[in-house]
């Protein structure tokens, strides 16, 4: 029998895509505190989408919910909407504008409109908010929950550890998308209004064992250190040791994994939308825009690819920063 701990670390490593941990280049010591060009780009993108998620409703000028005008705007006279990106200009509105100077409705749909006549670019902008809320809230909750359980089982070991790690093992064994699907149905049922909280809960449950394992493994090693022994010898209570001595050392590892976790949550939300369990129709997320476009993919592939672009860039940025954070903290650990 291989030892359980090696198996579970491996699973965690797998789930979270290990950072390439080659030998550190010689100059690493000097640059390790700096973010680097890639880091700055990644951080700027994340700040940008946070800003967009706040101001998106102000940026959106064309109709996004009811699309009659846009459909007509892009119509070619045969009554069928044209979904072409660029060059889809509301001819009638332009004519009106020339006639009486009224610019209303003269909108160019940079990314075209979907089958319901809604501007895809605007919807993607609007979807930022829901996507970020779902991704960030679920991972923050999972970090808190997983961190708590991981710290407790890693610090006290024994029976607590057996129960908690068995639970994590069982949860991780379940295919994540299937687990999320069952949970969303369980919490939301057929009520659309409860979909978003249900998705958040489902993603929290899926991510908790991953983050919990990281916290546990990290706690196991840190609680063997001399300063923890010293605190024990001085008579500190377990709660104090866990939160004052162990937690500050475990936190960086968890932060870097949480970064990757947000990316995984965003992708899982989109996957749920693709199988028909995304946010309800009156809410927009990146995933729901992709799912909406999936039906017309054959003729209008941009309906899928336009909303996919921010998903890919965001996940790349989160992974990049997560990897960088992890490398940085690995270096610190080995230097001690």
């Amino acid at each position, binding site marked *: *029998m*291989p030892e359980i701990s090696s198996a579970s670390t491996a699973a965690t490593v797998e789930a979270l*895509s290990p950072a390439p941990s080659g030998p550190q280049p010689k100059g690493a010591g000097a640059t390790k505190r700096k973010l680097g060009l890639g880091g700055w780009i990644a951080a700027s993108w994340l700040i940008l989408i946070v800003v967009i998620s706040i101001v998106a409703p102000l940026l959106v000028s064309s109709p996004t919910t009811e699309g009659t005008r846009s459909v007509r705007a892009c119509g070619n006279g045969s009554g069928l909407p044209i979904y072409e990106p660029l060059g889809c200009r509301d001819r009638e509105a332009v004519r009106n504008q020339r006639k009486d100077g009224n610019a209303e409705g003269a909108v160019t749909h940079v990314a075209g409109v979907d089958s319901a006549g809604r501007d895809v670019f605007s919807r993607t902008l609007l979807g930022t908010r829901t996507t970020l809320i779902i991704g960030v809230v679920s991972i923050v909750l999972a970090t808190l929950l997983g961190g708590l359980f991981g710290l407790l089982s890693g610090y006290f070991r024994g029976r607590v550890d057996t129960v908690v790690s068995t639970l994590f093992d069982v949860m991780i*064994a379940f295919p*994540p998308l299937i687990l999320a699907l069952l949970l969303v*149905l369980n919490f939301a049922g057929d009520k659309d209004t409860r979909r978003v909280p249900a998705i958040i809960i489902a993603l929290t449950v899926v991510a908790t064992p991953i983050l919990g394992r990281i916290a546990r493994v990290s706690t196991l090693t840190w609680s063997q250190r001399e300063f923890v022994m010293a605190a024990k010898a001085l008579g500190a209570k377990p709660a104090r040791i866990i939160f004052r001595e162990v937690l500050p050392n475990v936190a960086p590892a968890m932060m870097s994994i949480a970064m990757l976790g947000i990316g995984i949550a965003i992708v899982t939300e989109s*996957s749920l939308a693709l199988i028909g369990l995304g946010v309800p129709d009156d809410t927009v997320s990146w995933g729901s825009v992709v799912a909406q476009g999936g039906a017309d993919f054959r003729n209008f592939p941009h309906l899928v690819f336009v909303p996919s672009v921010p998903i890919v860039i965001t996940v790349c940025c989160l992974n990049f920063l997560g990897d960088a954070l992890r490398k940085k903290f690995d270096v610190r650990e080995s230097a001690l």
Partner: protein
Amino acid sequence: MRLLGRRFLQLIVVMFLLSIVAFGSIRMLPGDPAELLVPGIDQARIEQAREDLGLKKPLYEQYGKWAGNFVTGDFGKYYRAAGDPTGDVKTSLPISLQLMLYTQIVALVIAIPLGVLTAYKSDSFFDKGANIFAFLGLSIPAFVVGYLLKQVFVFQLDWFPERGWVPLSESVSGHFKAAVLPVATLVIAQIAVYFRLLRSDMIGTLQEDFITMARAKGLKSRRILFRHALRPSSLTLLTVAGLNVGTLISSAVIVENIYGIDGMGLKLVRSVLSREYVAAQSFIAVIGILFVLINFLVDFLYTVLDPRIRHA
């Protein structure tokens, strides 16, 4: 042999727990098949439908009936949909198994040499390129890769069929043609995971004394890498390849969706969404048992790879 017996007992217990989870997780879903079966809100008729479907019997009795049938290979009936779950498993399970088998084989065949060589020449130009590829492979979601490949190779180049699956017995070339894009979609992330793992393990192994010894003996690099260093470095890879089946099933649902393949993942999602209790329970149990069996097999492969475990 005693170890084998103990592991087998463990396996039985795990499978029993699994069947309980499959049963429980489906029964907790809100809404039941009777409500979906009977149009309108006629309570009396809904009650009657519940009675007919056997939903009013105690849960343990329902569980017993389902589990008893399941063991004999009878996976129950659909309430509404045509066909039967047993036949569906017979057609869908081979598809999913083939999809996963091809993905794992292709992923390992590409990732192992890649991981070994980049560990040997770490920080080279080749190593950096491979790492960038792995980073992208992990960051781009399966559905984006799937749609992208479909757009390029189906709609633009017209090299592969748009959707569907061809059984191997029907047409060998058709079978592999239908499998190329789904497998390619799934394999990208797998290669990235395996490559990164193997690379970091190999870098560790290459610093061991027995490698220095092998070098001192004047062995060729290729022999050292693939004969001496690969075996001790491959244990984590093997564990992960087994555990990864869960993640692979999730990605497979999306890929099956995009390429219109009638695999287990899509079958399960559909049955859950339409509250086909018995069928959904059976599908979850089949997938779960598959996962457990694969990981059981992986534990045995350990003993082949690592003699220390065999003799312990």
